């Protein structure tokens, strides 16, 4: 199954984000070996050069480390993985606030709405393991 990619953003930046999510969500755990560029490209149905570019970006962020013997592995620095998780969360929250502002809500109103929504969800037995597996 090809990865779900947006039509209007550069492909490589979307690949970076999807792989980050795969690492954060534990599909690839700290210290795991990643599949080869070609395998990942085939899985995502994208160009191998683009996948290469995305992985290089992740390497620059130190989330992925290239080892001469075992190929590419996920960093064992769990602190970094958490930071990445936080960073992504912040990004999503910012986007969310921007959208809600557009809808005319103030920060306090948004917070109370979110709180309401969270209570509703936890009453219906929602937990984070039920998150949609958008990235797979």
């Amino acid at each position, binding site marked *: 199954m*090809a990865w779900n*990619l947006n*039509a*209007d*953003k*550069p*492909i*490589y930046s979307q690949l970076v984000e999807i792989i980050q999510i795969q690492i954060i969500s534990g599909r690839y755990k700290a210290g795991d070996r990643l599949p080869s560029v*070609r395998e990942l*490209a*085939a899985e*995502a*149905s*994208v*160009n*191998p*050069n*683009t996948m290469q570019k995305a992985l290089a970006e992740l390497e620059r962020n130190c989330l992925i480390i290239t080892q001469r013997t075992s190929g590419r592995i996920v960093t064992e620095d769990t602190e970094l993985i958490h930071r990445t998780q936080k960073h992504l969360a912040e990004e999503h929250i910012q986007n969310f606030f921007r959208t809600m502002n557009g809808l005319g809500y103030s920060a306090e109103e948004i917070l109370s709405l979110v709180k309401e929504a969270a209570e509703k969800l936890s009453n219906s037995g929602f937990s984070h393991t039920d998150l949609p597996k958008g990235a797979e």
Partner: protein
Amino acid sequence: MEALAEIRGLTKAYGNTIAVNNLNLIIPRGRIIGLLGPNGSGKTTLIKMINGLLTPTAGSILINGFPPGPETKARIAYLPERTYLQSGMKVCDLVDFFQDFYEDFNRDRAFSMLSSLNIPFTAQLKTLSKGTKEKVQLILVMSRNADLFILDEPIAGVDPAARDYILKTIINNYNENASIMLSTHLISDIENILDEVIFIRDGQLLTHMPVDQIREQYGQSVDAYFRGVFAC
């Protein structure tokens, strides 16, 4: 490294009709390139000239420094948009045929692809459906370790499963010294696997740029960009 192919001032005229008009193009190595354009824009004419099946009216084509001829044919794997196999042959005879003529042919790869698609080796070609014949042709072409793969409309008229198989085959076959050029008018199906795109209209080069550059510069997919450009 030198460019894989250099095309200069290429022109093909049929009487008063000009199919390809003074085209200049450089094809680098290690890329998957989409050759895009509406029907009748000159894609197939260009491809046939690169393969030496059409004689240019003017201009030059150099592949690995050679004009189209035995040296270039040994290094180009070409999938035309029609069935060129003789129907009396068996699938395994065809594998032998390709093995005999193309030094870069990988027999094992061909057989493993044939079995993964459940195509019987001993079947006569004429007993196979049109779709299966096209798959046999694709497998034979993709089983070569050529420098340049030229696939003319490989995904037109195939079912989604076959299309995914074709795209996977192209990705799996990719290597950094070879380039793959595929022509199509169905861009959205393939744009994710492309490095760069070549737009042709009325036999002239309109654009040649990386896919991500189009997305960054115009904030839209290649498909949407293409529709915008040609919507007149």
